[in-house]
């Protein structure tokens, strides 16, 4: 295996190029910039299109147009930039186009900061734009997984004519790890039938997100919902650690997930029967897996770098059968494994009841830590 020591942002960029990316449109923003910088040199080298737009609004609408041709296209950005793209993503979703978006999330809200964060879970998994639609959201926890999921994102986008978002954070974007890049895929020459190509004599193809007639819009929405059901049935992904005999379950994704892995190992060394579930597809979320684990576990701990957003999905799946604790850090603060270990030990002391709201309990503790200033 030919391992390279490679930075997350660069690894994703090269993975996209090797997946047969034909065009890239974007606008620089930290902590994602190395991705755009890398493709700005790489794409012209391969005689493919790179364009730095005048803004994120421009970029996402260029992606919209490029996707209509049925060729592989993408953009990447970070939180404030992805907010600007939401209108376009809603249009793209309604038009049923395959598009890959990489979001290297940073601390917010507002302009916030450039530190690692998971604060955009809700925006990503609920469809951050207007109207009812879903997008597939994949959350890598390592550089290798970022490469593999970027490759997968293009396949899923085409299979379901859907937006697929690779949801990273500043930590994953900036860190280097040994990883193996996949072989080059040839650029697809087979163009899907729905694409608009301006082929003379073929008859009119229309790709649009305008349905003036409400029943026509409703019909589109039913089709989108049905396709989402299919995605929910087929595309749930996760990784479990030490689950067999686990009495306590930690749930965390991406960077918070791998930090939790260190804490779970340390807790195991102390004799605590703890396991970790790391959701990889955040949408569709592994509800059934969490639900099954609720039969086995005594209690749950959800760890996130936000104010408890995936927490709501875990609560849905656990359905008040077992107590849930929450530990989150916000605004670009990254938790340490030692802090998560402390939370695991608290959970295992067995004091937590079903009646307590995990977010209220967590926030009360945070307020004590921060004092009256918070």
């Amino acid at each position, binding site marked *: 295996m030919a391992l390279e020591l490679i930075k997350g942002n660069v690894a994703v960029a090269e993975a996209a190029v090797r997946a047969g990316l034909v065009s890239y449109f974007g606008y620089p923003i930290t902590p994602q910039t190395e991705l755009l910088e890398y493709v700005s040199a790489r794409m012209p080298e391969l005689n493919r299109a790179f364009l730095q737009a005048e803004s994120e609004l421009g970029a996402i609408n260029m992606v919209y147009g490029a996707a209509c041709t049925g060729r592989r296209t993408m953009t990447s950005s970070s939180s404030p930039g992805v907010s600007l793209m939401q209108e376009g993503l809603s249009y793209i979703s309604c038009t049923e186009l395959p598009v890959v978006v990489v979001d290297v999330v940073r601390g917010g809200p507002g302009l916030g900061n450039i530190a690692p964060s998971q604060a955009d879970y809700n925006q990503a998994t609920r469809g951050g734009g207007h109207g009812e639609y879903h997008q597939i959201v994949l959350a890598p926890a390592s550089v290798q997984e970022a490469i593999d999921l970027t490759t997968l994102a293009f396949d899923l986008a085409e299979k379901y004519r859907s937006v697929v978002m690779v949801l990273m954070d500043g*930590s994953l974007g900036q*860190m*280097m*790890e040994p990883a193996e890049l996949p072989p080059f895929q040839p650029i697809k020459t087979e163009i899907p039938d729905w694409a608009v190509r301006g082929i003379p004599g073929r008859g009119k193809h229309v790709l649009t997100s305008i349905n003036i007639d409400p029943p026509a819009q409703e019909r589109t929405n039913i089709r989108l919902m049905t396709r989402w059901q299919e995605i929910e049935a087929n595309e749930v992904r996760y990784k479990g650690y030490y689950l067999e005999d686990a009495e306590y379950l930690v749930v965390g994704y991406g960077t918070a997930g791998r930090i939790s*892995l260190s804490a779970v190992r340390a807790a195991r060394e102390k004799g605590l029967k703890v396991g970790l579930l790391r959701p990889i597809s955040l949408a569709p979320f592994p509800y059934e897996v969490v639900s099954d684990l609720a039969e086995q576990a005594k209690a749950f701990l959800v760890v996130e770098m936000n104010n408890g957003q995936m927490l709501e999905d875990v609560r849905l799946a656990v359905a008040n059968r077992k107590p849930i604790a929450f530990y989150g850090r916000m605004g670009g603060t990254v938790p340490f*494994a*030692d802090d998560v270990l402390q939370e695991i030990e608290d959970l295992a002391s067995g004091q937590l009841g079903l009646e307590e709201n995990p977010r209220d309990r967590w926030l009360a503790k945070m307020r004590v830590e921060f004092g009256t200033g918070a």
Partner: protein
Amino acid sequence: MQTEVIISGFGGQGTLYAGQVLAYAAMDEGKQVTWFPSYGPEMRGGTANCTVVISDEEIGSPTVKYPKAVLALNLPSLDKYEDMIAPGGCLVVNESMVNRKPERTDIRVVILPANEIAQEIGNERAANMVMLGALLANIDILPIEALEKALKNHTAQRLQKFVEMNIQALRRGGEYRAA
């Protein structure tokens, strides 16, 4: 087994690069490794640090509260990290850039004038490699030879002329032992 190393100094002292050399060597030796930089609105002369985690199994957190080893290339780094080193861990201090002795007695402390040693070799900028050599001689993560190999294999062609000097720097640093 897992070892975490924080390499910290002023921007321009080569802390991020030293971490990358360590990470390349670990990778080539078949270890799991992560290299995580401080990043932000930094500038030359500001602070720069990176955390390198080397392990035999899948690495969880790429950052740690209590690292096993710290290379402090300047005084602010010594002040910031001395108290955080795990008991029994190792602190390598660049005597050229600090004006005090470390206070911890429950860790191994290596003190060496890395800048002066690097000057003797011919380039003050090799102080980062001197520090790295001292670390490897005092904690059991990788042999110095693994780093020498990594320098040869992963240095860009146009910079190959500096490899021999960097190897010398590693070896000179490796002569220092914790008191």
